[in-house]
Structure formats: structure tokens, C-alpha cells
């Protein structure tokens, strides 16, 4: 301290400036690294690799454009779109889509997977959340692969500044300003709207123009969030979702069925269900200990193992944890497995409620497979 004070004020100012510049350079390198996308290795069942911008040309060349994986069965049937990475801070939503891309074999109908629905949001983490930028997972041959954890909302470099109030179109519902960059508050989207609204518009156009029968949106939520470990369904998908829930419960997976709220706009299940004729829209939520307000230290280990001392302690507060928490935690494999089991049951239910548009898929691990062997066997090795 004495040495610092001995330096004249102008010298101290220069020292501070140099320090800030070094800090900016180091952090800048980290932020740039976040733009590098993880490599996905599609299964042999892949029929076609397309891009979202094919359904909204202005997205081409922007960070909103992203890969779309199409798996077509030999037999005709229905068409299903799976959205992963709507919120890249919800890792199970992304990883479940990755496992689909890398393992899926479709025999009847088609499954399209958009693993990074909000690709821009993968390029920046949310300030004040302390989110790790990457998770490392061992693959089938034991060698590691990395996957990004991003933010909940579009990178501000792609859409900025936020208004004080977000006005959802067309409902005119008012939301707080930051929701303007939340893809799951921007449906049905607008062709000439904000960056995020354009991504939502592209997804809606894809569903509309390719005549999809079902859209499934993978998410995660905080343990104290009222809608968690649940399937949220648009009313057109009510019967389908009820049957899926029944199937899951029979397999010992505890899950709730939640109707899509009529007066809460911008969400995929509400708006895509309302605006795409004939589409059934559902959303899955799993409980992520790395996301809520009560969480302890935020790091990759917490996300992977799903163990958190604060949520464990919160178990003593009546009604606070909406999902029971114990010392075994809620590991990532469990949350991914819930999504994949829910998808399997939803496809089985689709065959029953809409026999003209069945979709049959194989190659995916079940929750029990993941419990026994973890995620590694289903992640393609790094070449």
C-alpha cells in the first residue's frame, strides 16, 4: 500500500488503466472462446443437414442461424420437431437434443432436431449468474468432449439495447425489458421484428411450411419454480401429453401435466399451438439445481452432479423445493434421461391419438440406461 501511495497520482492512474486493459484483454479472449461451437457428430440415421435460415433468409450469416438435423424413416408418417437449447443455461435441454442428434434412428415418419434453437444465446453467459462457460463429459472411448453452457437470452451483441418494457406481439402483453431477448417469450415471432423475434419467426415458418404434427421444446427450471418435472401442453396436445404422462408414471417417472396458460404469451407451447394450424405443442421441464436463486456454488461440478448444499438445506422449508432433494442430487444424466423418456412416451402417444401420422424412433438411451451407464456411451468419441 505504501509503495502504491508513493507513486504520483498520474502514475497510479496509468497503472490502473494498464491493469484494466490487461483485464479486458484476458476476459475478451474468454468471451471470444464462447463463440466457438462444440462439434456434434450425427448418427448414421441422419438424412439431411439443413439450416434454420432456409425458413427466414435474413438469418443467414447471423448468429441466429443454426444447424437443423433431419432424420427420415423409410416408412411415411408424421413429422416432429425437437427444440433444444432454447435456453442454453439449461444444459439438460441441450444435451438431450445432442443425444438425439448423435443416436437417433427413425424408421417411420420424421424427426427434425434443432439442438441450438437460440444459437446466439450460446455465445454469452448471463452477467451476475456466475455460469461456467463449458462442461466436459467423457465419451464412449473415455476421451473428453466439451459442450457450452450459455445464457438464458440472446447475446446483447446481437440485440441491444433492451427496452425498459418488452411488448409481446401480437398480444401486447407487457414483460420486463430483458425478456425481449428471451426466445421463449418471443413466439410466434415477426419477420421484421427484433433478432430474437426473427429466430422465433423462422421456427414458426419451419413448422408451418413443412406441416409438422408435433413440436417438443426441451427446458430446465429451478427447483423452487412451480412448474418443474412437468410436461406443459397446449390444449390441442392435452390428450397426447396426458397419455405420455401416464406412460412415464407407469415406468416410475414422477411427472406432472400442466396446461399451457391462456393469458401468458410468447411461450412456445402457447403461441406455436395457437398460430400453426394442426400443430401439437408441448414443453418439458426438468429440475436443475444449478439454476435457482437458492443455489450454492455455481460450477460445472454442480451442474453435472446436480448436488447443492443450499437446496438440500431448503428441503427443511415447507413447500420451497417443488422437487424432493437429497444427498444423491439431480445429476445431468437423470435430467437428460427424463427428457428422452418423455419424448419416447410422447411419440408412442402420438401414434394413438393420430394414427395417420405415427413416428417411430430408436437408438435412444432410456432413463434406466443412463442410470446404469451414464451419458458417456451415447456421446460419439472425438475423432
Amino acid at each position: 500500500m505504501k509503495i502504491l501511495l508513493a507513486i504520483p497520482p498520474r502514475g497510479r492512474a496509468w497503472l490502473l488503466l494498464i491493469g484494466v486493459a490487461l483485464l479486458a484483454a484476458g476476459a475478451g479472449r474468454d468471451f471470444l472462446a464462447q463463440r466457438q461451437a462444440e462439434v456434434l457428430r450425427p448418427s448414421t440415421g441422419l438424412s439431411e443437414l439443413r439450416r434454420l435460415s432456409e425458413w427466414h433468409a435474413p438469418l443467414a450469416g447471423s448468429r441466429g442461424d443454426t444447424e437443423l438435423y433431419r432424420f427420415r424413416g423409410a416408412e411415411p408418417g408424421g413429422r416432429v420437431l425437437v427444440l433444444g437449447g432454447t435456453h442454453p443455461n439449461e444444459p439438460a435441454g441441450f444435451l438431450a437434443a445432442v443425444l438425439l442428434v448423435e443416436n437417433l434412428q427413425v424408421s417411420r415418419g420424421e424427426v427434425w432436431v434443432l439442438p441450438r434453437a437460440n444459437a446466439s444465446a450460446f455465445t454469452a453467459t448471463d452477467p451476475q449468474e456466475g455460469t461456467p462457460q463449458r462442461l466436459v463429459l467423457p465419451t464412449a472411448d473415455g476421451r473428453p468432449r466439451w459442450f457450452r453452457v450459455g445464457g438464458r437470452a440472446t447475446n446483447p451483441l446481437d440485440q441491444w439495447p433492451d427496452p425498459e418494457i418488452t411488448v409481446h406481439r401480437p398480444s401486447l402483453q407487457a414483460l420486463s425489458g430483458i425478456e425481449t431477448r428471451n426466445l421463449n417469450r418471443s413466439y410466434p415471432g415477426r419477420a421484421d421484428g427484433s433478432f430474437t423475434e426473427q429466430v422465433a419467426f423462422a421456427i414458426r415458418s419451419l413448422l408451418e411450411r413443412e406441416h409438422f404434427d408435433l413440436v417438443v421444446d426441451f427446458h430446465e427450471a429451478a427447483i423452487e419454480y412451480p412448474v418443474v418435472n412437468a410436461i406443459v401442453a397446449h390444449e390441442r396436445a392435452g390428450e397426447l401429453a396426458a397419455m405420455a404422462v401416464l406412460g412415464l408414471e407407469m415406468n416410475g417417472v414422477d411427472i406432472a401435466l400442466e396446461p399451457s396458460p391462456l393469458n401468458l404469451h410468447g411461450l412456445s407451447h402457447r403461441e406455436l399451438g395457437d398460430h400453426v394450424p394442426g400443430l401439437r405443442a408441448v414443453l418439458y421441464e426438468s429440475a436443475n439445481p444449478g439454476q435457482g436463486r437458492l443455489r450454492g456454488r455455481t460450477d460445472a461440478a454442480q451442474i453435472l452432479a446436480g448436488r447443492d448444499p443450499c437446496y438440500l438445506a431448503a428441503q427443511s422449508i415447507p413447500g420451497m423445493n417443488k422437487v424432493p432433494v437429497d444427498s444423491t442430487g439431480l445429476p445431468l444424466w437423470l435430467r437428460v434421461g427424463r427428457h428422452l423418456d418423455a419424448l419416447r412416451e410422447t411419440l408412442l402417444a402420438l401414434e394413438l391419438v393420430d394414427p395417420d401420422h405415427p413416428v417411430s424412433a430408436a437408438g435412444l438411451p432410456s432413463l434406466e440406461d443412463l442410470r446404469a451407464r451414464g451419458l458417456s456411451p451415447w456421446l460419439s468419441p472425438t475423432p
Partner: protein
Amino acid sequence: MSLWPLGLMVLLFILLFARLRWPLGLALATAALAGGLLQGVPLTAVEQGGLPIPGSSIWRHLVEGGFVYIDPILIMVTAFFFMKVIEENGLLSALTWWILKGLGSRPALLATVLGLFVAFPGMLTGLSTASVLTTGAIAAPPLLRMGLDRRRAGAFVAMASILGVVAPPVNLPAMIICASVDMPYLGFMLPLLLLSLPLLVVCSLWLAWRPLQSGDPAAALEAVERGPLDRHGPRLLLPLLLIAVLMGGPRLFPAWWASPGMPVVLLAGSLLGLVTGDRVRVGAAAWAALRQALPVMGILVGVGCFIQILTLTGQRGELVLTVLQLPAWAAWLGIAVSLPAFGAVSALGSASVLGVPFLLALLGRPEIWVCAGLSLLAALGDLMPPASLACNFSAQVTGEPDYFRVLRRCLGPALLCALWALAVMAASPWLVQLLQGR
């Protein structure tokens, strides 16, 4: 786990700021750095499974946290520029003259009308800063001319601005809580009116009525320059009109009028002000605005670093958990203290971090009313040091060098607000029956 690391961080901050006289922002950032390192956040990037993990060092977190307030910082700089422009072009003195001429002899009415006037931008934007630095800057001169001391005038502006945030139609803390629990921001008009309007009137009268009664309106009017009004006529008012239109338009016609954002609104008003009144030295005004804003910018960056490290290390969660674990008899007190106290780092952050679990903990009561009450407590966070945006800026618009003095004047009205919020939340089942027949 425990809260001792947070305690150490706070102690270090106090040592650096109070004893060693470091700038507040730098003291906060240093305390965050030390706290992070102490709790095992690495200095350099770590490896996992042999792969380097970018962004795992403490430096990324400090920079990321420091950036969180970039939008408020822009609002602040443009608002200071607007203040300088209207000060130099004569609009400020013209408005002071008008206000004193019209209401100077009716102290109760003057206090109430000025309270509502200051609150207005906050009602439209949900930001106390927007109120303090626009209508607050206009209301301060007549209050000072009528004999209010700078601290009291600052407290008047700060409290009215905070209650503007709470008042409908736009209450950002409530909207943030709603968004986090997927609750539509609907049906808030009545609870927010009941929470804000009576307090706005009471706090305005509490802080200003008595001094205004003893003020001399004629002498005050005499001391104000009327010249700009005579020289430029009503066109002097155009910047204010433009700002009102740009702020109000998107709220009135949301279907086809998008908000350009507060910095653009204020900049547009400032640019118009350059040609509607006396000559303004643009460079000097911009420089003065920047110099005035710089210390607060530093505080906001430091606060951002601090809260990022708290979250990263789990201290934020530990803090929330501690309040939620209080015994039932102390829970209400815990809510009333912790929500405003967390505003020391960010009032909107407080709504998000604490407001949401508190709403969930109070499920069973009418949730809209509870959410509205929590939003008032969270909004009070704008008074809390070290950020203390409402007091900090109010001190600047009233010329008070020490914002802590403004804060001290706010304590009584703030306590009343907190009690009112608790009363409304506690009585919400009965209020819903009485006022809404449900």
C-alpha cells in the same frame, strides 16, 4: 456452508473505503476479487479432463459482472447531459418560475403536485433514475427556492422517484417477479395504486409541507430568472414535450410504437434543447455530464463485480436461504429488511433474487397483492448504500455533496413505506374481499 466469506468481503470493503479512502467502486471490486480468491475461484483458467476451460478464472467473472449495469450507465450519462442542457438553455429556470408562480402560495398542493410530477417518469419506465434525473431535476430548484434544505429536497426527490417505480402502469420489480414464476403482469393496477398513491402524498407532505409553509413565495419568485421565458416563449418547453411524447407514446400505442429506449429519448430531448433556448456550450455540457456520472459509474461496476462473485461462490444462495429459514415470527421482518437491503447491490436484482422465493414462500395469500407488496420493498433498495442510486442522484440534482445525508432524511418515510407494504401483504386476503369482491 455459512456467511462468513460474505462477512469478510464486507469488512474488507469497509476497510478499503472508509479507512483507506479508496474510491467506492474500486473498493467493491477489490473486495470481490479477494473474496473470490479466498473461496477458491482460480486466478488462471483450469483444465477439466485435460481440456482447458475458458472463462473459468476470476477475471472473466469480474469483467462479466462489471458489465451488468451498462444500460443504466448509459441512461445516467444521457440524463446528466439533458440536465446540463436544460440548465444552460434556460428551461430549468423557466419551469421553476412557472411552478413557483402557479403553486408557490399553496404549500400542500405544491408538495403533492411536485411529488406526482417527480414520480411520473418512474411510472412509465419503472426506473427511479429516470425520475430523479429528469422531473426530479426540475422539481428540485423550486423546492430549494422555497426554503427546503438540500438534504430534505434530495429526500423528497428520492422518495417520489421510488414510489414512481412502484406506481402503475409499469412496475419493473413486479414484472421481474412475475416473469420468474410465469405469472402474467395483469390485475396489478389496484394493488399498485393502493401501495403507491397514499404513500406518495404522505411522503411528499411529510418532507416538504412544513418547510414550504414557512417559505416566502414572492421572494423565491423574485430570485428566479424569468428571462428565458420572455426570450424564447413556449418553444422553450419543446424538449420536455418531446421526452413526454417519446416516453408516453409506446405506453399508449404499444401496437405500433416501439420504445426507442431511455438513452435515445434523453439524447433526443437534449439535442432539441440545444436549439430551443439560450446558447448551450455542448462540449462543456457533455464533459460536465461525464464528470458528474463517472463516480456513480465506478460504483455500479464495482457492485456488478461484487454480486457476480457472491453468486459464483454460493454466498448469494446462502443469504437467500438464511432469510427463508427464519422462524415464522421473524419471517415478515426478514422480508422487510432483506429485500431493501439487497438493493445495496441492485433493487431489480433484489426483486429477482429475493422477491421470487419470498413470493413462493408466501403462496396461499393473493399472489398479485403479495407480489405488489414485495415490489415496493424491492424498490426501496434504490436507497441502500453503496449504490444508493436514488439518493446518489438526488444529492447531485440538489447540490448536496454527501448523499448519506439525503439517505438519513429518507429513513423515516422509507420505514413507513416498508410498514405499509407489510400491512398490505398481511391484509391482502381481506383487501381482495373488500375491494375486488373475491
